[in-house]
């Protein structure tokens, strides 16, 4: 059995927190550049130009792309033949603490949702565990801003609502969000499972590269159709009008109950950050 020490996890999480906040993934840059080329509305062009300048400045100076450096969502895929020496949870939180401290990132976490006192080190991380075959550990850090998180919604549709119900709900969520989540946005959709699993699918959908479509051609087409519909809405960059309301729609699905059709829509902004490393 392979063994890794938990301090390796801390080092890795720390590095990923800093880099993910300063370096925008290549696929998102590609989407923004393509959107700029396709945009005909002057105001929208100007905003996309500034967004492009901004991610350049951020990477060059290793400065956060956005001041909301997010809650640290940390996805762990743990090989079942791997043994981790020490507490995984503590190791991840220590990585977040060091990354947000040494990286000059904003501490945006409050200890109690109602009492609202800041923990001052951006912990705890939101940790998601998956056990997978093998003896590796895959760590993804995705700092999630709440301007867009707050615009996300979940709905337990009826099976009779069907495909049309899903499409209408996704469009409604984007419409209600309007300018608030810093469009252009990335839309993560989770369909199926239970109430909680649908939300998790939607979040995981945001981790998938926007270069990739769903492997099922039916859902790949639905992703394209929804993207076109959203971009016909005219909301545009920052809500000032234009073609580019969304950069991508990513859908993930799973089996569900005969009586249900859960649909979750997790909205992300153009600062869709995530970075992965395998230990």
């Amino acid at each position, binding site marked *: 059995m392979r063994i890794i020490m938990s301090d390796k996890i801390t080092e890795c999480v720390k590095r990923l927190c800093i880099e993910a906040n300063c370096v925008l993934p290549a696929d998102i840059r590609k989407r923004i550049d393509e959107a700029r080329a396709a945009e*005909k509305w002057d105001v929208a062009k100007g905003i996309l130009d500034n967004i492009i300048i901004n991610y350049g400045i951020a990477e060059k100076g290793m400065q956060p792309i956005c001041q909301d450096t997010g809650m640290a969502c940390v996805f762990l895929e743990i090989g079942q033949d791997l043994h981790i020496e020490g507490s995984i949870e503590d190791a991840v939180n220590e990585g977040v603490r060091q990354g947000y401290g040494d990286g000059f990132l904003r501490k945006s976490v409050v200890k109690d949702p109602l009492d609202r006192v800041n923990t001052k080190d951006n912990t705890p991380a939101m940790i998601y565990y998956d056990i997978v075959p093998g003896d590796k550990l895959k760590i993804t850090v995705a700092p999630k801003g709440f*301007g867009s998180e707050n615009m996300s919604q979940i709905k337990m549709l009826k099976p009779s609502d069907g495909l049309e119900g899903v499409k209408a709900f996704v469009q409604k969520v984007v419409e209600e969000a309007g300018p608030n989540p810093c469009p252009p946005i990335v839309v993560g959709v989770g369909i199926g499972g239970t109430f909680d699993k649908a939300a998790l699918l939607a979040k995981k959908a945001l981790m998938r590269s926007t270069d990739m479509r769903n492997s099922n051609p039916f859902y790949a087409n639905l992703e394209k159709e929804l993207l076109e519909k959203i971009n016909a809405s005219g909301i545009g960059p*920052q809500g000032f009008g234009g073609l580019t309301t969304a950069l991508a729609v990513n859908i993930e699905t799973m089996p569900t109950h005969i009586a249900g059709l859960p649909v979750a829509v997790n909205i992300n*902004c153009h600062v869709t950050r995530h970075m992965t490393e395998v230990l």
Partner: protein
Amino acid sequence: MEKRITAPLTKDVVKTLKAGDSCLISGVIYTARDAAHKRLVELAEAGKPLPIDVENSVIYYVGPTPAKPGQAIGSAGPTTSYRMDAYSPTLIKLGETGMIGKGKRSPEVIAAMKECGAVYFGAIGGCGALLSSCIKKAEIVCYEDLGAEAVRRLEVEDLPVVVVIDAEGNNLYEIGRKEYLETL
């Protein structure tokens, strides 16, 4: 063409600003998010003096990242404004003339803006690194315990913003989208 304006912002200048205008703000502005707004409004309601001069003030809804050595401030883009909606009418009535944020505002805020003469600017959400370069000086005025949410006095130079809602209640989120869709 961009309009150059100065903060503090007088009501005479507010009247000249129309939804859709691109502006460059220079001068002194303050930062406050919802936690700070709550405290300011509680003081105002108790009839106590406020720690900032609200008359003709421009308040930027931002919680910056910590400054690295040599920087005046870290990344500093706008936060979503609707969380300030419960508090803004009180500050507008006390003389606040400008707000900088992103996203929609409530009918109550827009009514107070029309009544008293105030304007709502949008800065580009998610461009914190870029906007940071327009902030030349930053110092904490009060509520240091709120960390990123403390009230700061900023000296800004040519901070790029767009008038989203003007003092007549014209709203770029409605007008811009409609005009764009009409071109199709």
